[in-house]
């Protein structure tokens, strides 16, 4: 090989080795050793990368994805609940909730988290335990409606070194009317409980879902609830969102328009203020519930997040049972409000007619027992009309006795007593309509004719709910047509009414009597309204015998319940209202409550008519005005 002008490096090495050989030769073996060492080090490193990058790249890719991608729920707001005019009864308000991602949760962080968020540590641990069956990637909400102080606590601890398991999300929280207005109708929402999850009604929900627990919220939960969405975001190591990868929008729940009229509702609420009982107003022409009140009420806002234990205890242990919706769940003797149906039964069975008269001496004996009339001196000669107007007990003892328990029961059931009306609310009560069959079935005993006498004036085993009373009388008032009561407005509603074969003439006679109750100096004069023909019937139902009351052995709780059921106008009823005023002592005290609701209904109707007329006048005005001057 010839040397070029610029020698190759390899050639130079040969030369140099010769020059310095003597001094550095001793190291050549060690240099080789070092080279092998270097090769070993590089193989060691490369095998490390081989393991990571070639053998298990999927494993680490997945971890890298999980590192940077967070899936956060987007909570769907529940639908609003509106009254019949579109006014909002139940709204939502924006708030911030805290979710805990359990994938990288560290047990020892829980104490700090509980302290920072003002949560009870042991309850937080219990809550986590409840979710243990859910997959780890499902985050759980541990706190709603964070205060500014709690928010800044979260913001200050988002870095990976402190508490990265905390994440904030927006949430729409329920906002219910103040003072418990319409509380029982609307109900409330809450987190689905473990027992509920096992019931078929809630089977499709998961731990942590907020569902309707009572009232409309529960009945129409499927409509109101909406579908939660999801957001997949890329986050950096401080938990900051850098990019949105995927967004499944939440489908908000649908708004629900009720048949309830807030104006009437408020009037009814005011009428029951400080009293115990219920008011139900229906439109007998279609079954729409215009107002429904039960007192005492509760504040549903306390349920909006998780109710405090002490609040719950107070509600449950309250002797007045505020959680009970008396309008559909109180089953009480209807007292004299049952008499129109007894009269109807008498007329329909032909037991009595226009000429049927009895003489009331203030009481009468039946089957060896003396039954008193509520007027000590007696009513004298009483026929059907007077019997209803004066609510003469003796008259109805006689009618009931002649009609017999099974016919009474038949007409009571025909009017809707003894079974659920089918209103769209959960847990409606049935009431009891006693009959010989009923007694045999429940007590294995024969019916005694003497028992019929009490039932004829709405006492004995007979119990009804305020809703049933309004429903029964409303149907009777329109001539025997019963529309199922309902709370949600649906233009496509197709629910044919139940029509009973009742002679319209007989119904008219009963209605005429009920007109007299209010307008002819009867027991319901307090329900009278000028310009509006109000019909009605009072009732005062005993809870205990008068002897016991006089002996002073029982307290206020045993005072008579006052009832009033009324409708207007008499000839073509548009509204029927039943009011129950518990322990009022006097039956007539319930009448003004009904009167105010009926008055509010017609006042509103008049206002609407007037403004409509004014609007029409305005439209017509240009033609009516003076002709424009011609130039």
């Amino acid at each position, binding site marked *: 090989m010839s040397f070029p002008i610029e020698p190759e490096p390899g050639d130079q090495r040969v030369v140099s080795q010769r020059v310095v050989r003597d001094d550095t030769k001793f190291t050549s073996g060690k240099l080789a050793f070092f*080279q092998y060492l270097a090769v070993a080090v*590089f193989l060691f*490193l*490369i095998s490390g990368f081989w393991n990571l*990058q070639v053998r298990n790249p999927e494993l680490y890719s997945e*971890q890298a994805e999980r590192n940077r991608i967070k899936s956060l729920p987007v909570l769907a707001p529940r639908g609003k609940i509106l009254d019949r005019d579109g006014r909002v009864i139940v709204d939502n308000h924006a708030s911030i909730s805290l979710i805990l991602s359990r994938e990288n949760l560290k047990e020892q962080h829980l104490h700090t988290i509980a302290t920072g968020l003002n949560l009870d540590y042991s309850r937080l641990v219990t809550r986590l335990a409840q979710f243990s069956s859910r997959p780890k990637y499902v985050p759980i909400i541990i706190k709603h409606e964070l205060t500014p102080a709690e928010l800044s606590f979260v913001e200050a601890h988002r870095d990976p070194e402190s508490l990265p398991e905390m994440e904030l999300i927006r949430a729409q929280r329920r906002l219910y009317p103040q003072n418990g207005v319409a509380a029982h109708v609307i109900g409330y929402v809450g987190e689905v409980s473990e027992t509920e999850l096992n019931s078929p009604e809630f089977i499709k929900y998961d731990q942590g879902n907020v569902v309707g627990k009572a009232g409309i919220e529960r009945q129409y939960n499927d409509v109101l609830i909406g579908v939660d969405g999801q957001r997949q975001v890329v986050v950096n190591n401080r938990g900051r969102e850098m990019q949105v990868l995927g967004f499944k929008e939440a489908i908000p729940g649908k708004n629900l328009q009720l048949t309830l009229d807030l104006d009437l509702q408020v009037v009814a609420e005011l009428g029951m203020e400080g009293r115990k009982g219920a008011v139900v107003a229906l439109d007998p022409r279609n079954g729409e519930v215009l107002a429904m009140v039960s007192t005492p009420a509760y504040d549903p806002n306390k349920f909006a997040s998780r109710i405090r234990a002490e609040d719950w205890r107070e509600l449950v242990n309250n002797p007045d049972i505020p959680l009970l919706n008396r309008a559909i769940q109180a089953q009480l003797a209807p007292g004299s409000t049952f008499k129109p149906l007894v009269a109807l039964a008498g007329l329909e069975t032909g037991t009595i007619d226009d000429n049927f008269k009895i003489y009331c001496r203030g009481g009468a004996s039946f089957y060896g027992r003396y039954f008193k009339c509520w007027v000590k001196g007696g009513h004298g000669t009483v026929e059907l009309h007077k019997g209803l107007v004066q609510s003469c007990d003796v008259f109805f003892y006689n009618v009931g006795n002649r009609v017999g328990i099974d016919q009474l029961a038949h007409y009571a059931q025909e009017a809707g007593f003894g079974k659920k009306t089918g209103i769209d609310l959960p847990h409606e009560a049935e009431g009891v309509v006693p009959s010989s069959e009923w007694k045999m079935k429940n007590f294995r005993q024969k019916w005694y004719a003497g028992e019929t006498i009490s039932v004829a004036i709405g006492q004995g085993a007979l119990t009804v709910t305020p809703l049933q009373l309004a429903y029964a009388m409303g149907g009777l008032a329109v001539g025997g047509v019963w529309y199922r009561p309902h709370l949600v407005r649906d233009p496509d509603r197709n629910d044919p009414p139940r029509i009973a074969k009742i002679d319209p003439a007989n119904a008219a006679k009963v209605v005429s009597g009920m007109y007299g109750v209010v307008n002819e100096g009867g027991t319901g004069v307090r329900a009278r309204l000028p310009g509006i023909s109000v019909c009605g019937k009072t009732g005062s139902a005993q809870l205990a015998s008068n002897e016991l009351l006089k002996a002073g052995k029982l307290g206020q709780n045993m005072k008579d319940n006052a009832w009033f059921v009324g409708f207007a106008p008499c000839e073509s009823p548009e509204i029927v209202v039943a009011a129950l005023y518990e322990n009022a002592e006097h039956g007539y005290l319930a009448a003004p409550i009904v009167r105010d609701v009926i008055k509010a209904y017609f006042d509103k109707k008049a206002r609407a008519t007037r403004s409509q007329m004014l609007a029409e006048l305005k439209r017509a005005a240009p033609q009516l005005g003076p002709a424009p001057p011609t130039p």
Partner: protein
Amino acid sequence: MAKYRSVRDLDWPLLVTTLVICALGILQIYSATRGTRWDDAWWRQALWVVAGFIVLWIASTIDYHTLVGHAFVFYLLSLGLLVLVLLVGKQVFGSRRWIGYGSFHLQVSEFVKIVLILLIARYMTELKSDRLEASDLWKLAGLVLVPMLLVMRQPDLGTALTYLPILGAGVLFAGLRWRYLVVIALVVALVLPLSWHFLKDYQKARLESFLDPSQDPQGSGYQVIQSKIAAGSGGMWGKGVTRGSQTQLQFLPVPHTDFIFSAFAEEHGFVGVVVMLGLYFVLLMQMVQNAQTAPDRAGLYVCMGVCALLLFHILVNIGMVVGRMPVTGIPLPLMSYGGSNILSFFLMLGLVNNVRLWRFVT
């Protein structure tokens, strides 16, 4: 200018390899610091590399025999500077490592490496025998231990440990009796468990998490886990420059300094890793070749000191990236961001070239 030297005689394969490694390093720094408060680091690094080549040039012009001859003066000077660092050094993250004025700070411990390389070369050239005696070992150990202890006081265990391979290379090439080797191994085996008590808490945590990263996934083990995720998720071909999620979203700790190779592995994949390690291997082998052709023992010890130090850095830093070495916080030569790191290694490369330029001179 001396007549023995011309630009043509420089080790061009070594310089080109160095330039390629630095360029890829700058690209990686750019990619890893985009959108962070370090986003001008790549530019600064480029300036350091330019400065490094100037330093390399200067270091290759001064006769290394002169440098080796004054090694003890440099040694005393660097001890003084290390003491000064402990007294008036700039404190960052709880340790005093930097000394300087205004915005210009140097990490003295980085340059002490060069001084130790020169010192050991000097000591070994003056050996009369073919083997090291026990007294030589004691002296050498003492000479290295003093700066090591000073650096550990900063505290900077990682840099202090880098002084050991320099000593190790010297001892290896000078020759050692087998029984001394056994004694050293025994002493190390005894001292290691004892030294546990002298470690700082964070150092213990690092070692513990090295042994089992999953014990502490959010603390010290976090870095190792995130580094392995970054490298592993890069796969065969990598995610592309500026496309590595671990790097870009800052899951990877310090992706422009200690964990730069992790960021590189994520964005360039296994192929990129092999290429990069190949470049480092070429660099090492060029140095070994320069050692082989060195005109005298001093030149050989200088080249192999640099070579051993470089190999140690690569092993510890990249081993840490793949989770096969504990987190020590020592930078990757030529790639990691940092002026002192770049300048000290360019100085060493200058020395290697210096030795090369003397190969024809007898």
